[in-house]
């Protein structure tokens, strides 16, 4: 079951293979990939905090979600959305605050 916020992102389908083809770009992975790697490492380091998934939990959930609920997404979009799903499911972040923050970030990037 996808949270609404993530379902909408999946449905808009701005995945890198589509974007790269549309704009004739050759990078095999999206530019945010290394920042996502940094995000995962920073989370793993902080995993002793309450509710933050441990490295193993994060990877197990990513495997399950990537193969199941988010199987239509390519890599690394499936890794990113699975991570968001795990953080929502664990209550590390709420869907309201994520929704609000997505709007704020998009407005900033488009300003």
């Amino acid at each position, binding site marked *: 079951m996808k949270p609404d916020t993530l379902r909408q992102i999946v449905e808009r389908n701005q995945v890198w293979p589509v974007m790269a083809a549309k704009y004739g770009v050759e990078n095999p992975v999206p530019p945010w990939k290394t920042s996502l790697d940094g995000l995962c490492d920073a989370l793993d*380091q902080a995993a002793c905090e309450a509710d933050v998934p441990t490295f193993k939990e994060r990877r197990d959930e990513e495997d399950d979600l990537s193969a199941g609920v988010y199987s239509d997404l390519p890599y690394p979009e499936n890794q990113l959305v699975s991570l968001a799903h795990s953080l929502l499911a664990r209550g590390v972040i709420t869907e309201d605050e994520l929704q609000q923050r997505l709007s704020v970030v998009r407005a900033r990037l488009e300003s």
Partner: protein
Amino acid sequence: MTDHGHDHDHDHDHDRTVKPMVDEITDFEVLEIALRELCIEKGIFTAEEHRRFTEFAEQIGPTPAATLVARAWLDPDFKALALAEPMTASKEVGVDWLEPTGFGTPSDFTAFQILEDTATVHNVIVCALCSCYPRPILGNSPEWYRTPNYRRRLVRWPRQVLAEFGLYLGDDIEVRVQDSNQKHRFMVMPMRPEGTDGWSEDQLAEIITRDCLIGVALPKAGVTTNVITATRAAVHPVGE
């Protein structure tokens, strides 16, 4: 081409020299930033910690590992060092396993071993549990290495999985699957192939591809690319 608002005293066309880029803000880009900012605001990690790990992710790649093996092929003393003290040998090709935190990254612990192939033993690495990989020296793992398909099947049917990579090994060669875990990381040192006599370290390093260092391929004179070049589906039609 639009007017840039400044005088050009050269006549080349910028449209032809600038590489194309995605001129659209994607939901995924926004999601990555939003998640990160929320985590930072909640005190889960700092922006500085994130920056340091991201910088690490950007600078790693398979070149140091290839250089290490090439040097070991050329220098028996260095080979002995690589097998006995892989951390020390790593430093000689520019990799400090304690970076970027002083303790390595959270998922890259510092027990590292180099597995030497022989005429009768072939090594291949996997992480059956998740996707542990010798990142500091070999870069980020390829997508297929992370898949449950590779992880689960390699430990059970190694010869079949290797054959799917185009690597067929005779029955006289023992296949050893080395399972990485949170405490141990491995890398394969393949044997130097025929047809490389007199080659320099740089020439040798070119044929020691990432896949050879994982163990799903063998180095071969003239082959400088990985076996698997496209693991994701073909380009999706726009608007699909």
